[in-house]
C-alpha cells in the first residue's frame, strides 16, 4: 500500500541520481560516499535522515548546502540549483561539531550573526534564548551541552532560513536536553506555518518518529527509502505463516528480510499493493524495525530502485 502523494506540495529539495565520489577519477581508491540518490522532500516538513555511520548522511547534507560539489547527478534546493550562491541566504546549516566560540557569550554570537547575515531577526533569537532561561551574557564554554545546542539553533534560525539542515544535532545530548532541543525545533517549524523545512540526521529513531513527518533511509551510500512517515509506517509489514515458500510474496512485494525456522516463516516486506493472501498473518512494524530491516539488508543489488513512498515521482 503506497500512500498517495499529497497534491500541490512544493519541493524544498529534489535530487536526481545525485552522487559524490571522493578521490581522483580513475584512482582505484576513489570511493563513492553517495550514489544514485534520487529523492524529494516537500516544503514545510521535518525530514529525518537515518543510516549507519558512513552511509552518506553528512555527504548528502554537504551537497545540499553547497559545501560539496556533486560528482554526478543534480540537486535543486528551494527551486534553485545548489551551484548558485543565491539560495544560501535561505539555508541554515548546523554541522555535527556545534560551531560556537567557547569564550564568546550567546550575545556575542548573536552580534556576529547580525553582522554576517543580510536578513537577521536578532529580537526573535534573543527571545528564544530568554524563554529557555539561557543567560545571554554567559560564555558558551561554561554552558551545558543542551544550552549550547539551543544557542546554535537560535543562531541558525536567526537568519530566518526556509531550509534548515541539522547534522546529528542531538547526538551528544542527554534525554531531557534532546527533548527540549526537538521541542524548540518543532515550535520554530509550527511558527513558520509551512515556511520552514528541516532535515535532521540522527541515529535515534524514537526521536525521529516523534518529531518527523518525512523519512529518508541511507545505507551503503545509497538511498533505500524516502517518503511520508505515515506512508512508510502503513506500507511495511511483518508477515508470518507456517513454513512455506515466499515466491508469491516476492513476486508482488519487496522482501526486506526472510527468516525460516523449522516450523515458521517470517517475512519483513514493503507492500507494493494490497496483500491478497489471507493465509499470512500480518503485523504492523515499528519505525525502529523498519529502519533496522533496511540497514541490515545486504548486499544491495545495483538494480534495486529506492522506494519513494507517498512520494511524488
Amino acid at each position, binding site marked *: 500500500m503506497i500512500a498517495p502523494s499529497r497534491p500541490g506540495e512544493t519541493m524544498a529539495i529534489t535530487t536526481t541520481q545525485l552522487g559524490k565520489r571522493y578521490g581522483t577519477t580513475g584512482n582505484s581508491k576513489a570511493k563513492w560516499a553517495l550514489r544514485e540518490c534520487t529523492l524529494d522532500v516537500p516544503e514545510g*516538513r*521535518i525530514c529525518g535522515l537515518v543510516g549507519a555511520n558512513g552511509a552518506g548522511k553528512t555527504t548528502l547534507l554537504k551537497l545540499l548546502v553547497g559545501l560539496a560539489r556533486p560528482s554526478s547527478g543534480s540537486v535543486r534546493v528551494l527551486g534553485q540549483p545548489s551551484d548558485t550562491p543565491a539560495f544560501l541566504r535561505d539555508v541554515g546549516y548546523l554541522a555535527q561539531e556545534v560551531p560556537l566560540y567557547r569564550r564568546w557569550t550567546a550575545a556575542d554570537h548573536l552580534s556576529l550573526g547580525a553582522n554576517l547575515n543580510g536578513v537577521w531577526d536578532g529580537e526573535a533569537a534573543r527571545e528564544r534564548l530568554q524563554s529557555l532561561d539561557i543567560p545571554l551574557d554567559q560564555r558558551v564554554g561554561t554552558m551545558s551541552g543542551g544550552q549550547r545546542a539551543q544557542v546554535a539553533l537560535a543562531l541558525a534560525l536567526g537568519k530566518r532560513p526556509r531550509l534548515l539542515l541539522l547534522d546529528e544535532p542531538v547526538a551528544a545530548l542527554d534525554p531531557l536536553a534532546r*527533548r*527540549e532541543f*526537538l*521541542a*524548540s525545533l*518543532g*515550535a520554530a*517549524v*509550527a*511558527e513558520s506555518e509551512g515556511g520552514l523545512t528541516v532535515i535532521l540526521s540522527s541515529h535515534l529513531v*524514537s526521536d525521529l*518518529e*516523534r*518529531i*518527523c*513527518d518525512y523519512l529518508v533511509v541511507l545505507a551503503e551510500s545509497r538511498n533505500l527509502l524516502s517518503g511520508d512517515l505515515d506512508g512508510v509506517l502503513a506500507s511495511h509489514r511483518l508477515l508470518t505463516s507456517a513454513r512455506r515458500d515466499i515466491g508469491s510474496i516476492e513476486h508482488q512485494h519487496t522482501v526486506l528480510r526472510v527468516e525460516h525456522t523449522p516450523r515458521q516463516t517470517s517475512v519483513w516486506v514493503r507492500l507494493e499493493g494490497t496483500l491478497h493472501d489471507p493465509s499470512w498473518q500480518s503485523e*504492523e512494524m515499528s519505525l525502529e524495525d523498519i529502519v533496522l530491516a533496511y540497514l541490515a539488508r545486504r548486499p544491495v543489488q545495483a538494480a534495486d530502485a529506492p522506494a519513494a513512498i507517498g512520494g511524488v515521482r
Partner: protein
Amino acid sequence: MLTFHLTSHSNVAPYLQIVQQVRQSLLAGVLHPGDQLPTVKDVVAALAINPNTVLKAYRELEREGLVEGRQGVGTFALRRPDGPPPAVQAMLGRSLARWVDKARLAGFDDAGMESLLRATLLSAADEAIA
C-alpha cells in the same frame, strides 16, 4: 488550559491520542464549548512532536464538528460529543475507582486490570452480536 500527554507504547497513533483526549475532555466537562484549545506551537513545544501531527488531530476534530478553527486566532471547542452527561461520567468514574481499589486488593496490577477490562469488553461485544 488543556494539556496533552502522549504515550509511545501505544498502538494508537499520536494524532489519534490527541483527538481522543480532546473528545474525552469535552465529554467530562473539563473543556467547554467556546474554550480555546492549545495552539499548535504550544502543543509542539510541550511534547516535541511534529506540528503536522497536531494539525491533523485538530482537522479530524473539526471534521467531527467538535472544534472550530478560526483563521489567525486559534482553535475553539464547539460542542460536546454525543455521550453521557458529565454527572453520569463522574458517577461511572467513581464506581470504576471503587472497582480498581477492589481489584488492587485482590492482587491485580495495572496490566492485569487492563487485560481483564479488555476481555470483558470483548465478551460483551460478542454477546451483543449473538
